[in-house]
């Protein structure tokens, strides 16, 4: 691999890794509060991408209930991304209401909640297919809509070519990461989230309304998941209703690799897997998923709690 290609691949890896990181943080937030993997997170990711498509004012395809429909208005891409994320956050809150809270209130086994979240994921995928069909959707080109060049060249005679989309994806991921880190570590609600994650009983004794914080958690989780969906849709396309399922599995690999429930772990895990995949030589690119999971497998053999995970302490 020559040097220029290497640099390009590293940058691709960082962009993809950044998206993995913010997506995986959605899992991490819910996991650290409830101790449950939210299997519907991948579906929320998918919905975020479709919502953004709708907010752009773009027309849906020829199949499904919404065939040939479009919103009567459209907003520029950055705003559409934001709205898409917010809408995904709202859906995530609804998922908490129907698939998590009823079981929690009855003191059900976390395994049951896991299954009900999986059920919601399947239902969402089917609803999407019913509404807009199974075809792939692409966002209108940013080159045209925002008037930006498709790629940037660095250097003189043999320039390094970087797709503008990768720069956008990387930058947005980093902004989301910084905001999220600030939210968790420096705001009152963020501290309360940490308290609930550590000890729900004590949190309630301190006057923290844990149910409300769980809603906040699901909203933030859905918001970052939806943004991640839009970013991946921008990079390739929305490949169909199953868009988020494979990505969801990758997200699980990311949080397990970084350490379950660890925020820095999710970021590091995302970047490691993103870079790992990007550095797979071109002739083996078909195997990059296998390589990502092989990395996970090897790390777990050496360090079962993940790179930055704490040893699991049995809670009383």
């Amino acid at each position: 691999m020559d040097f220029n290609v290497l640099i390009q691949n590293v940058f691709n890896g960082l962009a993809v890794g950044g998206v993995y990181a913010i997506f995986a943080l959605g899992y991490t937030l819910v996991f650290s509060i409830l101790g449950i993997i939210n299997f519907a997170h991948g579906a929320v990711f998918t919905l975020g991408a479709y919502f953004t498509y709708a907010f752009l004012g773009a027309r849906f395809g020829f199949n499904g209930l919404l065939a040939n429909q479009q919103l009567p208005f459209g907003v520029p891409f950055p705003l559409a991304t934001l709205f898409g994320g917010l809408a995904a956050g709202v859906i995530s809150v609804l998922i908490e209401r129907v698939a998590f809270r009823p079981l929690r209130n009855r003191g059900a086994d976390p395994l049951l909640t896991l299954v009900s979240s999986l059920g919601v994921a399947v239902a969402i995928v089917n609803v999407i297919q019913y509404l807009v069909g199974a075809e792939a959707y692409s966002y209108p080109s940013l080159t045209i809509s925002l008037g930006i060049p498709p790629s940037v060249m660095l250097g003189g005679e043999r320039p390094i070519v970087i797709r503008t989309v990768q720069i956008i994806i990387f930058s947005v991921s980093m902004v989301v990461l910084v905001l999220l880190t600030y939210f968790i570590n420096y705001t009152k609600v963020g501290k309360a989230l940490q308290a609930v994650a550590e000890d729900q009983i004590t949190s309630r004794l301190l006057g923290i309304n844990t149910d409300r914080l769980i809603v906040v958690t699901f909203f933030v989780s859905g918001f970052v998941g939806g943004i991640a969906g839009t970013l991946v849709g921008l990079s390739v396309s929305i490949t169909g209703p199953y868009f988020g399922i494979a990505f969801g599995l990758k997200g699980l690999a990311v949080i397990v690799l970084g350490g379950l429930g660890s925020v820095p772990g999710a970021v590091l895990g995302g970047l490691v897997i993103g870079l790992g995949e990007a550095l797979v030589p071109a002739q083996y690119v078909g195997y990059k998923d296998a390589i990502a999971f092989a990395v996970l497998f090897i790390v777990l053999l050496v360090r079962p709690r993940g790179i930055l995970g704490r040893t699991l302490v049995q809670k009383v």
Partner: protein
Amino acid sequence: MNVLEINNLSVSYGAVQALIGVSLYVQRGEIVALIGANGAGKSTLLRTISRLIKPKSGEIRYMGEDVLAMRADTVVRKGVAHVPEGRRVLARLSVEDNLLLGAYTRSNRPKIRENLERQYRRFPRLRERRTQLAGTLSGGEQQMLAIARALMSEPQLLLLDEPSLGLAPIIVRDIFQIIRELNADGVTMLLVEQNAQLALQNAQRGYVLEAGSVILDGKGSDLVDDARVRKAYLG
């Protein structure tokens, strides 16, 4: 005036009756001790007041208001703070974050700062260790942190669950010194203790709980001398 009034309270865990028709009251400015053996239902009573446990029947009134109609966070907002058994500091957060979370229900920032300063004056060790993770504190320091954290909510009524548990005698003496000082400052307390002697010596009144029922109550000094209490709890 009664800060807290409990009438005929019964709590059960499945088929097990944890509290059976308990009635008691706490007047403004008092320390009331609740003593009894392990499993007598003392912690259950405090947890029921804090709305962590739903009672089967009975009534709890705080400042005349129906506590059982409130959410757990409302109880704290109204002025009841609970120092739980085993301290339960948030080990992965700093000492100062623990204290600030104690003021979660309060929103007046200058007052919170002032209150924080007051706790640091009362517990200089906490000031020294304020950036340290709470999990790295010694048992006595954690107990001080748990008390200071509860005080950050500016409570009218403090529920103290086994503050002496697992601490060296010299630390226990410090903790009870602080409890007396707080009471002198006007904080009303319901104190749960297995160390009956210590609790009754420091309380104006006391209740003896056995197998979920109040079997005896009276002035602290009388209970210390009571033959039945001596035999059962003071050895």
